[in-house]
């Protein structure tokens, strides 16, 4: 317990130092890389809550990531053009508004998708979540007002009162704080009564139902919470990259989130972040040397899936001698 807090604090401090390290070594791209990895980590962690703890294999998680991103993009678009969304909702560039809005809209989308998908199970669930994600993907492609296939440029990062958000390092620290807060939120969530029931449903849904738990409602709430997390990550990503595009919700992106979860360790808190960090680093590093970086990534993934149980977290735990 004590040890866990110590590790968390150390990791947080190290991550907070990244902009300084980057400046000192001249590797200015680091800040950007680590920031992106943290945001992907949040998205993967949100997926892990339903996938690892709840046993729901959603293949459409990128949809909520993209929707969260588009909320920021669309609000900025209207702010910039001085128009309003559907003629009613004025745009804004205030992060204190855009982020909650993104979380809310992603949650609503997740409620819709979840309410329909969770009636099925197994293969059908995987495929219907994928189908809904594809629908959102094509929906945004067909919206010419918001850039269609090209997406929306957000020329300026959302403003936060009292901070200079145009400073890349400040933005990074904001992202880091969100990631840390989200980690703590998830940690609390899985230890809560609700989290215990969700874990029970994963292990034996029939048993939970026979004890009077309406499993559908619990799974739906978990699905919504998870979608909201992905929406938050997407909104941060659009702020970080100043760009929202349909690519954010492409089905291969959903696949990538799943890879991050598996790579890091299903059903662990830190796993998705580690998986996101590793996958993103491997991808960007390899991409620098060869355009065929997907080949080694594919082989790595195949080997990990076929040979290991529990991903990198299991490995770390083995190396450090037990303990989370």
């Amino acid at each position, binding site marked *: 317990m004590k040890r866990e807090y110590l590790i968390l604090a150390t990791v947080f401090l190290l991550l907070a130092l990244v902009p300084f390290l980057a400046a000192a070594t001249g590797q200015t791209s680091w800040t950007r890389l680590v920031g992106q990895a943290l945001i992907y980590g949040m998205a993967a962690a949100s997926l892990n809550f339903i996938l690892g703890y709840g046993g729901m294999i959603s293949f459409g998680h990128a949809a909520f990531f993209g929707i969260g991103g588009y909320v920021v993009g669309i609000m900025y678009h209207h702010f910039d053009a001085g128009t309003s969304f559907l003629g009613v909702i004025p745009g804004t560039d205030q992060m204190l508004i855009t982020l909650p809005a993104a979380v809310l809209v992603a949650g609503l989308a997740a409620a819709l998708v979840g309410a*329909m998908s969770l009636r099925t199970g197994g293969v059908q669930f995987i495929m*219907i979540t994928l189908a*809904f994600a594809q629908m959102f993907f094509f929906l945004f492609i067909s*919206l*010419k007002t918001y850039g269609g296939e090209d997406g929306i440029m957000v020329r300026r990062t959302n403003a936060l009162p009292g901070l200079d958000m145009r400073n890349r390092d400040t933005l990074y620290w904001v992202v880091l704080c969100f990631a840390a807060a989200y980690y703590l939120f998830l940690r609390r969530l899985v230890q809560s009564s609700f989290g215990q029931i969700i874990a029970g449903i994963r292990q034996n849904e029939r048993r939970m139902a026979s004890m009077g738990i309406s499993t559908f409602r619990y799974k739906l709430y978990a699905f919504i919470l998870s979608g909201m997390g992905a929406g938050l990550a997407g909104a941060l990503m659009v702020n970080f990259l100043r760009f929202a595009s349909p690519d954010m919700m492409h089905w291969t992106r959903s696949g990538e989130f799943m890879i991050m979860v598996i790579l890091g360790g*299903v059903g662990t808190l830190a796993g998705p972040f580690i998986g996101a960090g590793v996958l993103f680093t491997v991808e960007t590093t390899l991409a620098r040397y060869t355009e*065929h970086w997907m080949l080694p990534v594919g082989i790595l993934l195949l080997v990990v899936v076929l040979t290991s149980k529990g991903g990198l977290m299991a490995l770390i735990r083995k190396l450090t001698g037990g303990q989370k």
Partner: protein
Amino acid sequence: MILLIEQLLNGLQYGVTLFLLAAGLTLIFGIMGVINLAHGALYMVGAFAGAWVSIQTGSFWAGLLAGLVASAIAGVLVELGVMRRLYARDHLDQVLATFALILIFNQSTVLIFGRQPLFTSLPEMFSGSVEIVPGLPYPSYRLFVIAVGLAVAFGLYLLINKTRIGMLVRAGASNRQMVRALGVNIGGLYTAVFGLGALLAGLAGVMASPIMSVQVGMGDEIILATFVVVVIGGVGSVKGAFVAGIVLGMCDTMLRAFLPGLLQQVMPGSEAQALGVGISSMGIYLMMAIILLVRPRGLFAAQG
């Protein structure tokens, strides 16, 4: 009217292509219980091998043979090397491992053939067109594709309903334990079914190659539609794959052909175009969502 008939035929041709892919996938799904995202990669292998050989030899038929052989071999290798280890795993592992296979297949193909699409020509015999109704000349090659698709459907029907292998396949789709209990060589059956599925995917690939461009990633686009077909038809049901394949192929083609035009009557041209294309792309997914809401296991779901 003539346009409508032409598009209906195009839809039918796309539908049988979907069926060829879905038939193998649904069998693999139903019998081994494994989700194979890499099925589209086998389609691509067939298309590339077929296109390359037919460009080298100048003969479509040599290409066809090569495509079939290549995809079947690739399928058997994948089964022996990877799939075997996945049967006992959960769906998550299957999705990820086969997702990895897609990456590997795509990049290997880029390494071998580059990123430029390959173009092949139609077989001499079917390079012309036939006037099916007065005023509508229709490419005879497309008719040939439809005919082959229907012939394969009939062949599969015979295989599944009239032979011992088919009996096992049917039994396997509804009750995996039972087949095991019959003392059948499961390993052999699995490899054979997987090989057959790969062969059908390769056939679809070769036949599509003169009509569509043969390029890396061609499998990724069609595999999603194929999954929709399999799930709507009911996992494990070849009949379902046939019905759903044809219906979806038609709907998809019709939407794409006519929706933008319809929308143009109510909104400006470029927006109508984009919206029309977007909505028609959503069409099959929407259908799947609706059908699964009514029948959570698909139209022709096998028991169990």
